[in-house]
Structure formats: C-alpha cells, structure tokens
C-alpha cells in the first residue's frame, strides 16, 4: 500500500510500535483542520504536513505581514502581502506531496464554521482572538468534534484538548468571553517568537495521537507553560455542570458570534 518513497519518508514513524504501517496509514487517511495560519498555525501545519496527515484544512483570512515573521515560521520574507493560507499551502505541499491542503481564506464565523468543521476528524484552534476561540469551542462541542485549544501571550501559553461529552470544554473554565477592553493581545502586549513553536507543536502532537488512537490525550487538564521560568504546570479541569454549552442545562444550543469579543484583537496584525 505504500510506495518505496513513502516507506522511506515515513520510516522513522513506521519503526515506532505506536505508529507502524497501520498508524501511518491512519495519518495519511486523517483530516485535520487548523484554524489560524499564524504563530501557532505555523508549526502545527508544518509538522502535520511532515507527518503525512493526508488532508489538512487551513482557515485564515489574513495576509502575511513583516511583523509576523519573528514567529510565524511557515511564512518567508517574499511572502509578505500574500494570503497566509496560500503561503502556508506552498510550503506544506513542497515539503510533502502526499498532503492535500485545503485553504479557506476567510475568518470563521457562526455562519460558516459548522460547514468547514464537518469534513474533519480533529480541529486545532490556533487563533488570536476570543470571538474565534469561543466559536471554535461551541462549533466543536455542538458537532461532537475533538479539538485542541491553544493560547499564547508574552512568555505564557496554555493548551487543553477537548473531547466533547467526555472531557471539560473551554466554556467549562471560561463560561463567557472577557470584556474586550481588559484583555491584552499579542499585537498589543508582545510575544516571544519561540513560544508558539512550543505550544503549536504540542497541539499538533495531540492531533497525531488522536488520529493514531495512541497514548493519552491532554483532556481534563489545562497545560500551562511559562518560557521565562521554563516551567510547565498541569491543572486538572473537571467537566462543569453549569457549563453553558456542555453542562446539565445548556443555554447555548446554536452557534452565535460573540460580538463583544469581536474586536479583542487587532486582526490586521
């Protein structure tokens, strides 16, 4: 079922008993959606492509800006001005011709997200604003899609994997988005360039483990990372009975845009 070239390309995976030929086939048959082709999305997309995840969706409406290149390692200097999803697709397909990249040059909204998410096995949140983070959580919980949450700021990052119905979701921790004026974003507060490399690589690992059915997912645990002190911590998170979307009496039963959080991040940069 593999070509000689594929056996060679994936030999270090095939050697692993948790992967093997069967697992590599699962990766090649796997479909992962990455929302955000920026700081987190760069390492996620590169590693998923290198691993041979067969279909990778990439959603982002933005274009490459010079200020992105300090951390968004999938984009190069000549890409400035190019749509991020197209810049990323070029690199991923050049790296691994086994991979089909489906670009969605759009912001995800309550109107389009369910339609995009439904074609994928696993979703990764690599977005930079709370409107998108809450929307991705809600869309994945309502569609019963496992997903990886990730967030970064300055020297700190956090990530958690959500398996709807089984483990706590983002709204179990944060029922509502914060008021837009109180939350600093990377474009206002800064971010150390290597940080999304650490967090994004963990998120990509979760997608790969999910496709393989290997190991333990980062569910029911919020993993936090501080690069300055070089510390990881894990905080146990139980499902919250009062969660507005996955609790005992949910108040959110259909998708909506969190209008108050829409402008949290300067989406241009």
């Amino acid at each position: 079922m593999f070509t000689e070239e594929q056996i060679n390309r994936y030999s270090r995976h095939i050697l692993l008993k948790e992967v093997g030929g069967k697992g590599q086939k699962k990766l090649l048959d796997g479909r992962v959606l990455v929302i955000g082709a920026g700081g987190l999305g760069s390492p996620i997309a590169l590693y998923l492509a290198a691993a041979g995840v067969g279909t990778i969706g990439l959603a982002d409406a933005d274009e490459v800006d010079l200020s992105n290149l300090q951390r968004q390692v999938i984009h190069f200097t000549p890409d400035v001005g190019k749509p991020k999803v197209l810049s990323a697709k070029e690199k991923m397909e050049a790296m691994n011709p086994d991979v089909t990249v489906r670009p969605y040059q759009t912001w995800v909204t309550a109107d389009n997200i369910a339609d995009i998410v439904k074609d994928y096995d696993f979703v990764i949140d690599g977005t930079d604003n709370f409107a998108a983070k809450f929307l991705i959580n809600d869309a994945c919980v309502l569609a019963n899609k496992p997903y990886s949450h990730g967030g970064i700021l300055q020297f700190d990052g956090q990530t958690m994997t959500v398996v709807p119905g089984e483990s706590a979701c983002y709204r179990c921790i944060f029922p509502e988005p914060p008021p837009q004026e109180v939350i600093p974003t990377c474009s206002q507060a800064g971010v150390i360039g290597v940080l999304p490399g650490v967090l994004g690589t963990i998120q990509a690992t979760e997608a790969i483990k999910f496709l393989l059915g290997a190991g333990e997912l980062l569910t029911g645990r919020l993993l936090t990372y501080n690069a300055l002190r070089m510390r990881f911590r894990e905080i146990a998170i139980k499902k919250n009975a009062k969660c507005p979307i996955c609790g005992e009496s949910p108040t959110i039963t259909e998708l909506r845009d969190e209008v108050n959080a829409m402008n949290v991040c300067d989406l241009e940069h």
Partner: protein
Amino acid sequence: MQLTVNGKQTSIADQETLSVTSLLETLQVSQREYVTVELNGEILDRADFDGATVKSGDAVEFLYFMGGGAA
C-alpha cells in the same frame, strides 16, 4: 492558614477562613474581574465568590484567558 495557590504553598496570616472575594483582594490577584477560580478541583461560579470560603489545606487555582495565537 496554609493554602496551595497555583501549586505553591502560601500562608495567609491571622485568617482561619476567607471568602473567595476577600482572598482575591488579599493576594492582590490581577484581573480580578475575569479570573476563573478553581477551588479544590471545582470551577467556581463567579456569583459564588462572595459565598465560597477557603480554609487551611485548600488548593486554589487562578486561571486566565490567553488570547494570542495567530496574529
């Protein structure tokens, strides 16, 4: 009392118990308006911050929104 706050042993002098609201003030927790508080593994409702109390031996986590990623 002795608490474990974000994984660290923390002493609060002269207090046997405190409401979560007072704890946030005593520890000068930043961004009090939107921090999520987990007490002994349970996420607290914001409406319960006045009523819920902490005592010696409790474990408290302060959880913050982290919004960055793409831009």
